[in-house]
Protein backbone atom coordinates (compact mmCIF):
# COMPACT_ATOMS: atom_id res chain seq x y z
CA UNK A 1 0.00 0.00 0.00
CA UNK A 2 2.65 2.48 0.94
CA UNK A 3 6.34 2.97 0.97
CA UNK A 4 8.13 5.46 3.14
CA UNK A 5 9.11 8.26 0.85
CA UNK A 6 11.78 9.23 3.31
CA UNK A 7 14.57 7.48 5.10
CA UNK A 8 13.66 6.03 8.47
CA UNK A 9 16.67 4.22 9.84
CA UNK A 10 15.92 0.83 11.35
CA UNK A 11 16.86 0.60 15.01
CA UNK A 12 20.53 0.35 15.90
CA UNK A 13 22.02 -3.09 15.81
CA UNK A 14 19.90 -4.12 12.83
CA UNK A 15 21.82 -6.75 10.97
CA UNK A 16 19.26 -8.01 8.53
CA UNK A 17 21.34 -7.59 5.42
CA UNK A 18 23.50 -10.43 4.16
CA UNK A 19 25.94 -8.35 2.19
CA UNK A 20 27.38 -9.70 -1.01
CA UNK A 21 31.15 -9.42 -1.36
CA UNK A 22 32.01 -5.81 -2.04
CA UNK A 23 34.72 -4.39 -4.17
CA UNK A 24 36.43 -1.05 -4.16
CA UNK A 25 37.31 -1.36 -7.82
CA UNK A 26 37.03 2.19 -9.17
CA UNK A 27 36.17 0.85 -12.62
CA UNK A 28 33.08 -0.90 -11.22
CA UNK A 29 32.05 2.22 -9.35
CA UNK A 30 32.52 4.29 -12.50
CA UNK A 31 30.40 1.87 -14.55
CA UNK A 32 27.67 2.01 -11.89
CA UNK A 33 27.73 5.81 -11.83
CA UNK A 34 27.58 5.98 -15.60
CA UNK A 35 24.56 3.77 -15.72
CA UNK A 36 22.80 5.74 -12.99
CA UNK A 37 23.60 9.01 -14.76
CA UNK A 38 22.19 7.62 -18.00
CA UNK A 39 18.99 6.69 -16.12
CA UNK A 40 19.71 3.01 -16.72
CA UNK A 41 18.58 0.10 -14.57
CA UNK A 42 20.70 -1.79 -12.05
CA UNK A 43 19.93 -5.52 -12.01
CA UNK A 44 20.63 -8.09 -9.25
CA UNK A 45 23.72 -9.53 -10.92
CA UNK A 46 25.28 -6.09 -11.41
CA UNK A 47 27.89 -4.66 -9.11
CA UNK A 48 26.52 -2.00 -6.81
CA UNK A 49 27.95 0.02 -3.92
CA UNK A 50 27.15 -1.54 -0.57
CA UNK A 51 25.46 1.62 0.65
CA UNK A 52 23.12 1.50 -2.37
CA UNK A 53 22.28 -2.15 -1.66
CA UNK A 54 21.74 -1.45 2.00
CA UNK A 55 19.50 1.54 1.36
CA UNK A 56 17.40 -0.48 -1.09
CA UNK A 57 17.05 -3.46 1.24
CA UNK A 58 15.91 -1.16 4.00
CA UNK A 59 13.45 0.72 1.82
CA UNK A 60 12.00 -2.35 0.08
CA UNK A 61 11.69 -4.35 3.29
CA UNK A 62 10.02 -1.41 5.04
CA UNK A 63 7.67 -1.19 2.09
CA UNK A 64 6.93 -4.94 2.25
CA UNK A 65 6.32 -4.77 6.01
CA UNK A 66 4.00 -1.82 5.46
CA UNK A 67 1.89 -3.88 3.07
CA UNK A 68 1.61 -6.71 5.56
CA UNK A 69 0.95 -4.62 8.65
CA UNK A 70 -1.38 -2.52 6.49
CA UNK A 71 -3.65 -5.55 6.08
CA UNK A 72 -4.68 -5.23 9.73
CA UNK A 73 -6.45 -1.85 9.94
CA UNK A 74 -8.64 -2.64 6.94
CA UNK A 75 -8.95 -6.33 7.75
CA UNK A 76 -10.57 -5.07 10.95
CA UNK A 77 -13.77 -4.36 8.96
CA UNK A 78 -14.01 -7.42 6.72
CA UNK A 79 -16.29 -9.33 9.08
CA UNK A 80 -18.61 -6.33 9.47
CA UNK A 81 -18.70 -4.95 5.92
CA UNK A 82 -22.24 -3.62 5.46
CA UNK A 83 -23.03 -5.29 2.13
CA UNK A 84 -21.81 -8.41 0.36
CA UNK A 85 -20.44 -6.34 -2.50
CA UNK A 86 -18.35 -4.21 -0.12
CA UNK A 87 -17.23 -7.30 1.75
CA UNK A 88 -15.94 -8.89 -1.46
CA UNK A 89 -14.22 -5.66 -2.54
CA UNK A 90 -12.55 -5.28 0.84
CA UNK A 91 -11.30 -8.87 0.98
CA UNK A 92 -9.91 -8.51 -2.54
CA UNK A 93 -8.21 -5.26 -1.59
CA UNK A 94 -6.60 -6.59 1.57
CA UNK A 95 -5.55 -9.66 -0.37
CA UNK A 96 -3.89 -7.40 -2.93
CA UNK A 97 -1.86 -5.82 -0.14
CA UNK A 98 -0.65 -9.28 0.85
CA UNK A 99 0.30 -9.85 -2.79
CA UNK A 100 2.24 -6.60 -2.82
CA UNK A 101 4.09 -7.80 0.26
CA UNK A 102 5.03 -10.96 -1.62
CA UNK A 103 6.40 -9.13 -4.67
CA UNK A 104 8.36 -6.79 -2.46
CA UNK A 105 9.87 -9.47 -0.24
CA UNK A 106 10.87 -11.21 -3.46
CA UNK A 107 12.41 -7.99 -4.83
CA UNK A 108 14.42 -7.58 -1.62
CA UNK A 109 15.54 -11.22 -1.82
CA UNK A 110 17.30 -10.41 -5.09
CA UNK A 111 19.58 -8.19 -2.98
CA UNK A 112 20.62 -11.12 -0.80
CA UNK A 113 18.23 -10.82 2.14
CA UNK A 114 15.82 -13.65 2.92
CA UNK A 115 12.19 -13.21 3.87
CA UNK A 116 12.95 -14.85 7.21
CA UNK A 117 15.64 -12.27 7.91
CA UNK A 118 13.29 -9.44 7.02
CA UNK A 119 10.44 -10.86 9.10
CA UNK A 120 12.80 -11.27 12.01
CA UNK A 121 13.62 -7.57 11.71
CA UNK A 122 9.92 -6.70 11.78
CA UNK A 123 9.01 -9.01 14.63
CA UNK A 124 11.89 -7.93 16.83
CA UNK A 125 10.85 -4.32 16.37
CA UNK A 126 14.08 -3.30 14.60
CA UNK A 127 12.58 -2.78 11.16
CA UNK A 128 10.08 -0.01 10.56
CA UNK A 129 6.88 0.04 8.54
CA UNK A 130 4.67 2.89 7.46
CA UNK A 131 3.47 4.77 10.49
CA UNK A 132 0.04 5.40 8.99
CA UNK A 133 -0.97 1.90 10.06
CA UNK A 134 -0.48 2.73 13.70
CA UNK A 135 -3.80 4.55 13.74
CA UNK A 136 -7.09 2.74 14.41
CA UNK A 137 -9.95 2.17 11.96
CA UNK A 138 -12.91 3.23 14.09
CA UNK A 139 -15.81 3.17 11.65
CA UNK A 140 -16.67 1.71 8.26
CA UNK A 141 -16.01 5.12 6.68
CA UNK A 142 -12.34 4.68 7.60
CA UNK A 143 -12.18 1.92 5.00
CA UNK A 144 -13.31 4.33 2.29
CA UNK A 145 -11.08 7.13 3.51
CA UNK A 146 -8.04 4.85 3.63
CA UNK A 147 -8.70 3.95 0.00
CA UNK A 148 -9.20 7.53 -1.05
CA UNK A 149 -6.55 9.35 0.97
CA UNK A 150 -4.02 6.82 2.24
CA UNK A 151 -3.86 4.90 -1.03
CA UNK A 152 -4.04 8.21 -2.87
CA UNK A 153 -0.98 9.45 -0.99
CA UNK A 154 0.73 6.10 -1.57
CA UNK A 155 0.17 6.39 -5.32
CA UNK A 156 1.80 9.83 -5.31
CA UNK A 157 4.79 8.26 -3.62
CA UNK A 158 4.91 5.12 -5.66
CA UNK A 159 4.40 6.21 -9.23
CA UNK A 160 7.90 7.75 -9.30
CA UNK A 161 9.27 4.45 -7.92
CA UNK A 162 8.23 2.71 -11.16
CA UNK A 163 11.27 4.55 -12.54
CA UNK A 164 13.50 3.54 -9.63
CA UNK A 165 17.04 2.65 -10.71
CA UNK A 166 16.83 -0.86 -9.23
CA UNK A 167 15.09 -3.06 -11.81
CA UNK A 168 13.24 -5.61 -9.65
CA UNK A 169 11.82 -2.89 -7.39
CA UNK A 170 10.76 -0.72 -10.31
CA UNK A 171 9.03 -3.65 -12.02
CA UNK A 172 7.23 -4.68 -8.83
CA UNK A 173 6.03 -1.11 -8.45
CA UNK A 174 4.45 -1.05 -11.90
CA UNK A 175 2.09 -3.81 -10.87
CA UNK A 176 1.57 -2.42 -7.38
CA UNK A 177 0.63 0.99 -8.76
CA UNK A 178 -1.98 -0.46 -11.11
CA UNK A 179 -3.70 -2.20 -8.21
CA UNK A 180 -3.37 0.82 -5.94
CA UNK A 181 -5.20 2.99 -8.40
CA UNK A 182 -8.13 0.56 -8.21
CA UNK A 183 -7.94 0.73 -4.43
CA UNK A 184 -8.10 4.46 -4.47
CA UNK A 185 -11.09 4.51 -6.80
CA UNK A 186 -12.99 1.93 -4.80
CA UNK A 187 -12.45 3.95 -1.62
CA UNK A 188 -13.61 7.18 -3.20
CA UNK A 189 -16.60 5.47 -4.80
CA UNK A 190 -17.61 3.89 -1.47
CA UNK A 191 -17.57 7.37 0.10
CA UNK A 192 -19.54 8.92 -2.77
CA UNK A 193 -22.28 6.34 -2.19
CA UNK A 194 -22.29 6.92 1.58
CA UNK A 195 -22.66 10.65 1.01
CA UNK A 196 -25.96 9.97 -0.78
CA UNK A 197 -27.20 8.12 2.31
CA UNK A 198 -28.42 9.08 5.76
CA UNK A 199 -27.20 11.99 7.89
CA UNK A 200 -25.42 9.48 10.14
CA UNK A 201 -23.53 8.11 7.17
CA UNK A 202 -22.47 11.57 6.01
CA UNK A 203 -21.28 12.41 9.52
CA UNK A 204 -19.34 9.15 9.59
CA UNK A 205 -17.50 10.12 6.39
CA UNK A 206 -16.65 13.60 7.66
CA UNK A 207 -15.41 12.21 10.96
CA UNK A 208 -13.12 9.77 9.19
CA UNK A 209 -11.74 12.52 6.94
CA UNK A 210 -11.05 14.64 10.02
CA UNK A 211 -9.08 11.86 11.66
CA UNK A 212 -7.02 10.79 8.60
CA UNK A 213 -6.28 14.03 6.72
CA UNK A 214 -3.28 15.21 8.72
CA UNK A 215 -1.88 11.70 9.07
CA UNK A 216 -1.93 11.41 5.28
CA UNK A 217 -0.05 14.68 4.81
CA UNK A 218 2.60 13.42 7.22
CA UNK A 219 2.98 10.23 5.16
CA UNK A 220 5.17 12.12 2.70
CA UNK A 221 7.79 12.58 5.38
CA UNK A 222 9.45 15.61 6.94
CA UNK A 223 9.90 18.84 4.99
CA UNK A 224 12.75 18.73 2.47
CA UNK A 225 14.83 21.00 4.68
CA UNK A 226 14.78 18.31 7.38
CA UNK A 227 15.45 15.32 5.10
CA UNK A 228 19.22 15.03 4.91
CA UNK A 229 19.20 11.55 3.37
CA UNK A 230 16.96 12.46 0.47
CA UNK A 231 19.80 13.91 -1.62
CA UNK A 232 21.66 10.60 -1.75
CA UNK A 233 18.48 8.76 -2.66
CA UNK A 234 17.91 11.23 -5.51
CA UNK A 235 21.47 10.81 -6.71
CA UNK A 236 21.00 7.05 -6.88
CA UNK A 237 17.69 7.25 -8.67
CA UNK A 238 15.94 5.53 -5.77
CA UNK A 239 13.99 8.63 -4.90
CA UNK A 240 12.76 10.79 -7.73
CA UNK A 241 10.60 13.57 -6.29
CA UNK A 242 11.04 15.44 -2.99
CA UNK A 243 8.75 15.04 0.02
CA UNK A 244 7.36 18.57 -0.19
CA UNK A 245 6.74 18.37 -3.92
CA UNK A 246 4.81 15.11 -3.51
CA UNK A 247 2.83 16.50 -0.59
CA UNK A 248 1.90 19.60 -2.57
CA UNK A 249 0.82 17.47 -5.50
CA UNK A 250 -1.37 15.40 -3.18
CA UNK A 251 -3.02 18.45 -1.61
CA UNK A 252 -3.67 20.03 -5.00
CA UNK A 253 -5.24 16.83 -6.32
CA UNK A 254 -7.32 16.16 -3.23
CA UNK A 255 -9.00 19.52 -2.62
CA UNK A 256 -11.27 19.31 -5.69
CA UNK A 257 -12.09 15.66 -4.90
CA UNK A 258 -13.19 16.68 -1.40
CA UNK A 259 -15.44 19.31 -2.93
CA UNK A 260 -17.12 16.79 -5.22
CA UNK A 261 -17.55 14.45 -2.29
CA UNK A 262 -19.05 17.18 -0.11
CA UNK A 263 -16.65 16.99 2.82
CA UNK A 264 -14.51 19.64 4.47
CA UNK A 265 -10.78 19.09 4.86
CA UNK A 266 -9.96 19.95 8.48
CA UNK A 267 -7.45 22.76 7.88
CA UNK A 268 -8.46 26.42 8.33
CA UNK A 269 -5.27 27.47 6.50
CA UNK A 270 -6.09 25.50 3.40
CA UNK A 271 -6.61 28.02 0.57
CA UNK A 272 -5.69 28.62 -3.05
CA UNK A 273 -2.55 30.69 -3.58
CA UNK A 274 -2.86 32.37 -6.97
CA UNK A 275 0.76 33.44 -6.96
CA UNK A 276 2.14 29.93 -6.39
CA UNK A 277 -0.68 28.29 -8.35
CA UNK A 278 -0.95 25.78 -5.50
CA UNK A 279 -2.99 25.33 -2.34
CA UNK A 280 -1.39 26.57 0.87
CA UNK A 281 -1.91 24.36 3.90
CA UNK A 282 -1.31 24.51 7.65
CA UNK A 283 1.33 23.10 9.97
CA UNK A 284 1.71 19.34 10.35
CA UNK A 285 2.21 18.09 13.91
CA UNK A 286 5.65 16.54 13.45
CA UNK A 287 6.12 15.88 17.15
CA UNK A 288 3.11 13.55 17.11
CA UNK A 289 4.34 11.97 13.87
CA UNK A 290 7.77 11.12 15.28
CA UNK A 291 6.25 9.79 18.50
CA UNK A 292 4.23 7.38 16.38
CA UNK A 293 7.16 6.45 14.13
CA UNK A 294 9.15 5.71 17.25
CA UNK A 295 6.60 3.30 18.66
CA UNK A 296 4.34 5.46 20.80
CA UNK A 297 1.29 5.84 18.58
CA UNK A 298 -2.20 4.51 19.32
CA UNK A 299 -1.79 1.06 17.73
CA UNK A 300 1.96 0.34 17.37
CA UNK A 301 2.01 -2.34 20.03
CA UNK A 302 -1.20 -3.97 18.82
CA UNK A 303 -0.09 -4.11 15.19
CA UNK A 304 3.28 -5.63 15.94
CA UNK A 305 1.96 -8.08 18.52
CA UNK A 306 -0.70 -9.25 16.04
CA UNK A 307 1.93 -9.97 13.40
CA UNK A 308 4.11 -11.78 15.93
CA UNK A 309 1.15 -13.84 17.15
CA UNK A 310 0.21 -14.96 13.62
CA UNK A 311 3.83 -15.87 12.90
CA UNK A 312 4.36 -17.79 16.12
CA UNK A 313 1.05 -19.62 15.97
CA UNK A 314 1.74 -20.54 12.35
CA UNK A 315 5.10 -22.10 13.14
CA UNK A 316 3.70 -25.64 13.42
CA UNK A 317 2.03 -25.30 10.02
CA UNK A 318 5.25 -24.17 8.34
CA UNK A 319 7.18 -26.92 10.14
CA UNK A 320 4.67 -29.49 8.92
CA UNK A 321 5.03 -28.34 5.31
CA UNK A 322 8.82 -28.51 5.46
CA UNK A 323 8.84 -31.89 7.19
CA UNK A 324 6.35 -33.33 4.74
CA UNK A 325 8.38 -32.06 1.78
CA UNK A 326 11.51 -33.66 3.22
CA UNK A 327 9.71 -36.97 3.80
CA UNK A 328 8.39 -36.95 0.26
CA UNK A 329 11.82 -36.27 -1.14
CA UNK A 330 13.37 -39.03 0.95
CA UNK A 331 10.72 -41.47 -0.28
CA UNK A 332 11.26 -40.58 -3.92
CA UNK A 333 15.03 -41.00 -3.56
CA UNK A 334 14.48 -44.38 -1.93
CA UNK A 335 12.14 -45.45 -4.73
CA UNK A 336 14.64 -44.35 -7.35
CA UNK A 337 17.45 -46.27 -5.66
Amino acid at each position, binding site marked *: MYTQSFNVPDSPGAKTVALAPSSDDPALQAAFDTRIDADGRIEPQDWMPEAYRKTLVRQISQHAHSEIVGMLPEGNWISRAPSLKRKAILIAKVQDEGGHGLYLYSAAETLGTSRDQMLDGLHSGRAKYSSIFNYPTLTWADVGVIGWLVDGAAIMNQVPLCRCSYGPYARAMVRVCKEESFHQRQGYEALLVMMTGTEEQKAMVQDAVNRWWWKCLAMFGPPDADSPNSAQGMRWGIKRVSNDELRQKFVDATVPQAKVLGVTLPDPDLKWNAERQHYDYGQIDWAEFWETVNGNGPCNKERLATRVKAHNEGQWVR*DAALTHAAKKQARSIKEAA
Partner: protein
Amino acid sequence: MSAAIDYLLHLADNALVLGQRNAEWCGHGPILEEDIALSNVSLDLIGQARLLYQLVAALKGGDCTEDKLAYFRDTHEFRNYTLLELPHHGPLSGYAQSSLDYGTTIVRNFLYSALMALLWEALEKSANADLAAIAAKSLKEVRYHLRHSRDWLVRLGDGTDESHARAQASLDHLFAYTQEFWAHSPADAAAIAAGIGVDVTTLRADWDAIVDAALNEATLQRPAVSGYVTEGKQGIHSEHLGFLLAEMQSLARAHPNGVW
Protein backbone atom coordinates in the same frame (compact mmCIF):
# COMPACT_ATOMS: atom_id res chain seq x y z
CA MET B 1 -41.19 -22.03 -6.09
CA SER B 2 -40.89 -22.33 -2.35
CA ALA B 3 -38.93 -25.57 -2.83
CA ALA B 4 -36.46 -23.73 -5.02
CA ILE B 5 -36.12 -20.84 -2.57
CA ASP B 6 -35.45 -23.07 0.43
CA TYR B 7 -32.91 -25.10 -1.48
CA LEU B 8 -31.12 -22.07 -2.92
CA LEU B 9 -30.97 -20.45 0.51
CA HIS B 10 -29.35 -23.60 1.89
CA LEU B 11 -26.66 -23.44 -0.79
CA ALA B 12 -26.23 -19.68 -0.40
CA ASP B 13 -26.02 -19.76 3.39
CA ASN B 14 -23.41 -22.53 3.21
CA ALA B 15 -21.25 -20.37 0.96
CA LEU B 16 -21.69 -17.16 2.93
CA VAL B 17 -21.10 -18.63 6.38
CA LEU B 18 -17.97 -20.51 5.33
CA GLY B 19 -16.79 -17.48 3.34
CA GLN B 20 -17.18 -15.35 6.46
CA ARG B 21 -15.24 -17.87 8.51
CA ASN B 22 -12.38 -18.23 6.02
CA ALA B 23 -12.03 -14.46 5.79
CA GLU B 24 -11.17 -14.41 9.49
CA TRP B 25 -7.69 -15.53 8.46
CA CYS B 26 -7.06 -12.42 6.41
CA GLY B 27 -3.99 -10.85 8.03
CA HIS B 28 -3.38 -13.76 10.40
CA GLY B 29 -2.33 -16.69 8.21
CA PRO B 30 0.52 -19.04 9.13
CA ILE B 31 2.44 -17.80 6.07
CA LEU B 32 1.71 -15.00 3.65
CA GLU B 33 0.86 -17.35 0.78
CA GLU B 34 -1.86 -18.97 2.91
CA ASP B 35 -3.30 -15.61 3.87
CA ILE B 36 -3.73 -14.94 0.19
CA ALA B 37 -5.07 -18.43 -0.55
CA LEU B 38 -7.67 -18.35 2.22
CA SER B 39 -8.81 -14.89 1.11
CA ASN B 40 -9.25 -16.28 -2.38
CA VAL B 41 -11.35 -19.19 -1.14
CA SER B 42 -13.42 -16.75 0.86
CA LEU B 43 -13.93 -14.49 -2.15
CA ASP B 44 -15.10 -17.43 -4.26
CA LEU B 45 -17.58 -18.48 -1.58
CA ILE B 46 -18.96 -14.99 -1.10
CA GLY B 47 -19.25 -14.69 -4.87
CA GLN B 48 -21.27 -17.94 -4.97
CA ALA B 49 -23.46 -16.72 -2.13
CA ARG B 50 -24.17 -13.46 -3.94
CA LEU B 51 -25.28 -15.20 -7.13
CA LEU B 52 -27.53 -17.55 -5.21
CA TYR B 53 -29.07 -14.80 -3.09
CA GLN B 54 -29.66 -12.72 -6.20
CA LEU B 55 -31.49 -15.65 -7.68
CA VAL B 56 -33.61 -16.02 -4.54
CA ALA B 57 -34.32 -12.28 -4.52
CA ALA B 58 -35.49 -12.46 -8.13
CA LEU B 59 -37.79 -15.39 -7.29
CA LYS B 60 -39.20 -13.65 -4.25
CA GLY B 61 -39.65 -10.34 -6.03
CA GLY B 62 -40.76 -7.16 -4.28
CA ASP B 63 -37.98 -5.33 -2.47
CA CYS B 64 -35.95 -8.43 -1.66
CA THR B 65 -32.21 -8.08 -2.32
CA GLU B 66 -29.10 -10.17 -1.72
CA ASP B 67 -28.22 -7.96 1.24
CA LYS B 68 -31.67 -8.26 2.82
CA LEU B 69 -31.21 -12.01 2.74
CA ALA B 70 -27.69 -11.92 4.15
CA TYR B 71 -28.09 -9.17 6.73
CA PHE B 72 -31.70 -9.13 7.85
CA ARG B 73 -32.51 -12.76 8.51
CA ASP B 74 -31.98 -14.20 11.97
CA THR B 75 -30.14 -17.30 13.10
CA HIS B 76 -33.11 -19.66 12.84
CA GLU B 77 -33.70 -18.56 9.25
CA PHE B 78 -30.21 -19.57 8.12
CA ARG B 79 -30.07 -22.93 6.35
CA ASN B 80 -26.34 -23.73 6.33
CA TYR B 81 -24.79 -26.96 7.57
CA THR B 82 -23.78 -26.56 11.21
CA LEU B 83 -20.24 -27.70 10.28
CA LEU B 84 -19.65 -24.45 8.43
CA GLU B 85 -20.47 -22.04 11.26
CA LEU B 86 -18.08 -23.54 13.81
CA PRO B 87 -15.15 -21.37 14.91
CA HIS B 88 -11.63 -22.31 13.80
CA HIS B 89 -10.79 -24.30 16.91
CA GLY B 90 -11.79 -27.38 18.87
CA PRO B 91 -15.12 -27.88 20.63
CA LEU B 92 -15.94 -24.98 22.96
CA SER B 93 -19.13 -23.27 24.14
CA GLY B 94 -20.45 -20.37 22.09
CA TYR B 95 -18.95 -17.53 24.12
CA ALA B 96 -15.59 -19.20 24.82
CA GLN B 97 -12.59 -17.73 23.02
CA SER B 98 -9.61 -19.44 21.45
CA SER B 99 -6.94 -18.74 18.84
CA LEU B 100 -7.50 -19.66 15.20
CA ASP B 101 -6.31 -23.18 14.43
CA TYR B 102 -5.25 -23.89 10.87
CA GLY B 103 -5.87 -27.60 11.24
CA THR B 104 -9.57 -27.03 11.92
CA THR B 105 -9.78 -24.70 8.93
CA ILE B 106 -8.11 -27.15 6.56
CA VAL B 107 -10.08 -30.20 7.70
CA ARG B 108 -13.40 -28.38 7.41
CA ASN B 109 -12.57 -26.91 3.99
CA PHE B 110 -11.56 -30.36 2.83
CA LEU B 111 -14.68 -32.15 4.07
CA TYR B 112 -17.00 -29.52 2.60
CA SER B 113 -15.11 -29.06 -0.69
CA ALA B 114 -15.11 -32.81 -1.27
CA LEU B 115 -18.90 -32.73 -1.03
CA MET B 116 -19.36 -29.62 -3.14
CA ALA B 117 -17.04 -30.84 -5.90
CA LEU B 118 -19.58 -33.65 -6.35
CA LEU B 119 -22.70 -31.64 -5.67
CA TRP B 120 -21.94 -28.73 -8.00
CA GLU B 121 -21.14 -31.22 -10.74
CA ALA B 122 -24.51 -32.91 -10.26
CA LEU B 123 -26.27 -29.54 -10.07
CA GLU B 124 -25.01 -28.63 -13.52
CA LYS B 125 -27.98 -30.76 -14.61
CA SER B 126 -30.51 -28.99 -12.38
CA ALA B 127 -33.92 -28.26 -13.88
CA ASN B 128 -33.35 -24.68 -12.79
CA ALA B 129 -31.17 -23.23 -15.56
CA ASP B 130 -29.87 -20.38 -13.40
CA LEU B 131 -28.79 -22.77 -10.69
CA ALA B 132 -27.15 -25.00 -13.30
CA ALA B 133 -25.13 -22.00 -14.51
CA ILE B 134 -24.05 -21.07 -10.99
CA ALA B 135 -23.09 -24.70 -10.43
CA ALA B 136 -20.86 -24.70 -13.51
CA LYS B 137 -19.02 -21.63 -12.26
CA SER B 138 -18.79 -22.87 -8.69
CA LEU B 139 -17.50 -26.27 -9.77
CA LYS B 140 -14.37 -24.71 -11.25
CA GLU B 141 -13.76 -22.85 -7.99
CA VAL B 142 -14.42 -25.71 -5.61
CA ARG B 143 -12.00 -27.97 -7.47
CA TYR B 144 -9.28 -25.53 -6.50
CA HIS B 145 -10.54 -25.39 -2.93
CA LEU B 146 -10.46 -29.17 -2.76
CA ARG B 147 -6.95 -29.32 -4.15
CA HIS B 148 -5.75 -26.65 -1.72
CA SER B 149 -7.29 -28.18 1.37
CA ARG B 150 -6.37 -31.74 0.40
CA ASP B 151 -2.73 -30.79 -0.19
CA TRP B 152 -2.58 -29.18 3.23
CA LEU B 153 -4.40 -32.06 4.88
CA VAL B 154 -1.68 -34.37 3.60
CA ARG B 155 1.08 -31.99 4.69
CA LEU B 156 -0.37 -31.69 8.17
CA GLY B 157 -1.20 -35.37 8.57
CA ASP B 158 2.10 -36.60 7.17
CA GLY B 159 4.17 -33.74 8.62
CA THR B 160 5.49 -33.46 12.16
CA ASP B 161 4.20 -35.37 15.17
CA GLU B 162 2.53 -32.20 16.36
CA SER B 163 0.83 -31.45 13.05
CA HIS B 164 -0.32 -35.06 12.76
CA ALA B 165 -1.87 -34.95 16.23
CA ARG B 166 -3.51 -31.61 15.56
CA ALA B 167 -4.94 -32.69 12.20
CA GLN B 168 -6.30 -35.87 13.77
CA ALA B 169 -7.87 -33.87 16.61
CA SER B 170 -9.55 -31.55 14.09
CA LEU B 171 -10.83 -34.53 12.16
CA ASP B 172 -12.16 -36.15 15.34
CA HIS B 173 -13.90 -32.90 16.23
CA LEU B 174 -15.45 -32.18 12.85
CA PHE B 175 -16.24 -35.54 11.31
CA ALA B 176 -19.47 -36.08 13.20
CA TYR B 177 -20.87 -32.90 11.66
CA THR B 178 -20.66 -34.46 8.18
CA GLN B 179 -23.55 -36.74 9.13
CA GLU B 180 -25.78 -33.80 8.36
CA PHE B 181 -24.72 -33.97 4.70
CA TRP B 182 -26.65 -37.22 4.29
CA ALA B 183 -29.80 -36.49 6.32
CA HIS B 184 -32.64 -35.29 4.13
CA SER B 185 -34.56 -32.24 5.28
CA PRO B 186 -38.09 -31.56 3.99
CA ALA B 187 -36.60 -28.81 1.82
CA ASP B 188 -34.15 -31.29 0.26
CA ALA B 189 -36.97 -33.69 -0.48
CA ALA B 190 -39.08 -30.96 -2.12
CA ALA B 191 -36.16 -29.74 -4.23
CA ILE B 192 -35.32 -33.27 -5.36
CA ALA B 193 -38.96 -33.90 -6.26
CA ALA B 194 -39.02 -30.69 -8.32
CA GLY B 195 -35.84 -31.70 -10.18
CA ILE B 196 -34.04 -28.63 -8.87
CA GLY B 197 -31.94 -30.31 -6.23
CA VAL B 198 -29.82 -33.42 -6.06
CA ASP B 199 -30.24 -36.40 -3.77
CA VAL B 200 -26.97 -36.05 -1.87
CA THR B 201 -27.06 -39.63 -0.66
CA THR B 202 -26.29 -40.70 -4.24
CA LEU B 203 -22.94 -38.88 -3.89
CA ARG B 204 -21.97 -40.51 -0.64
CA ALA B 205 -19.88 -43.37 -2.03
CA ASP B 206 -17.84 -40.96 -4.14
CA TRP B 207 -17.37 -38.65 -1.17
CA ASP B 208 -16.21 -41.57 0.95
CA ALA B 209 -13.69 -42.50 -1.71
CA ILE B 210 -12.27 -38.96 -1.93
CA VAL B 211 -12.06 -38.69 1.85
CA ASP B 212 -10.59 -42.14 2.45
CA ALA B 213 -7.90 -41.71 -0.21
CA ALA B 214 -6.83 -38.37 1.24
CA LEU B 215 -6.85 -39.62 4.84
CA ASN B 216 -4.81 -42.62 3.80
CA GLU B 217 -2.21 -40.39 2.16
CA ALA B 218 -2.26 -38.11 5.20
CA THR B 219 -1.80 -41.13 7.53
CA LEU B 220 -4.92 -40.05 9.44
CA GLN B 221 -7.65 -42.28 10.89
CA ARG B 222 -11.24 -41.83 9.80
CA PRO B 223 -13.28 -41.40 12.99
CA ALA B 224 -16.32 -43.56 13.59
CA VAL B 225 -19.35 -41.35 14.10
CA SER B 226 -22.73 -41.83 15.65
CA GLY B 227 -25.18 -39.94 17.82
CA TYR B 228 -26.56 -36.44 17.35
CA VAL B 229 -26.94 -35.35 13.75
CA THR B 230 -26.81 -31.57 13.45
CA GLU B 231 -29.77 -29.75 11.94
CA GLY B 232 -28.36 -26.45 10.75
CA LYS B 233 -29.98 -26.75 7.34
CA GLN B 234 -33.34 -26.86 9.10
CA GLY B 235 -32.55 -23.70 11.05
CA ILE B 236 -31.47 -25.38 14.30
CA HIS B 237 -27.89 -24.29 14.79
CA SER B 238 -24.99 -24.46 17.21
CA GLU B 239 -24.31 -21.67 19.69
CA HIS B 240 -21.74 -20.23 17.29
CA LEU B 241 -23.90 -18.96 14.44
CA GLY B 242 -25.53 -16.30 16.60
CA PHE B 243 -22.16 -14.70 17.30
CA LEU B 244 -21.08 -14.93 13.68
CA LEU B 245 -24.26 -13.23 12.48
CA ALA B 246 -24.26 -10.62 15.27
CA GLU B 247 -20.87 -9.46 14.09
CA MET B 248 -21.52 -9.76 10.37
CA GLN B 249 -24.89 -8.00 10.49
CA SER B 250 -24.11 -5.34 13.11
CA LEU B 251 -23.28 -2.41 10.84
CA ALA B 252 -25.99 -3.08 8.27
CA ARG B 253 -28.59 -3.33 11.05
CA ALA B 254 -27.34 -0.21 12.84
CA HIS B 255 -28.11 1.72 9.65
CA PRO B 256 -31.14 -0.03 8.16
CA ASN B 257 -31.74 2.89 5.80
CA GLY B 258 -28.08 3.26 4.91
CA VAL B 259 -26.79 2.98 1.36
CA TRP B 260 -23.47 1.30 0.78
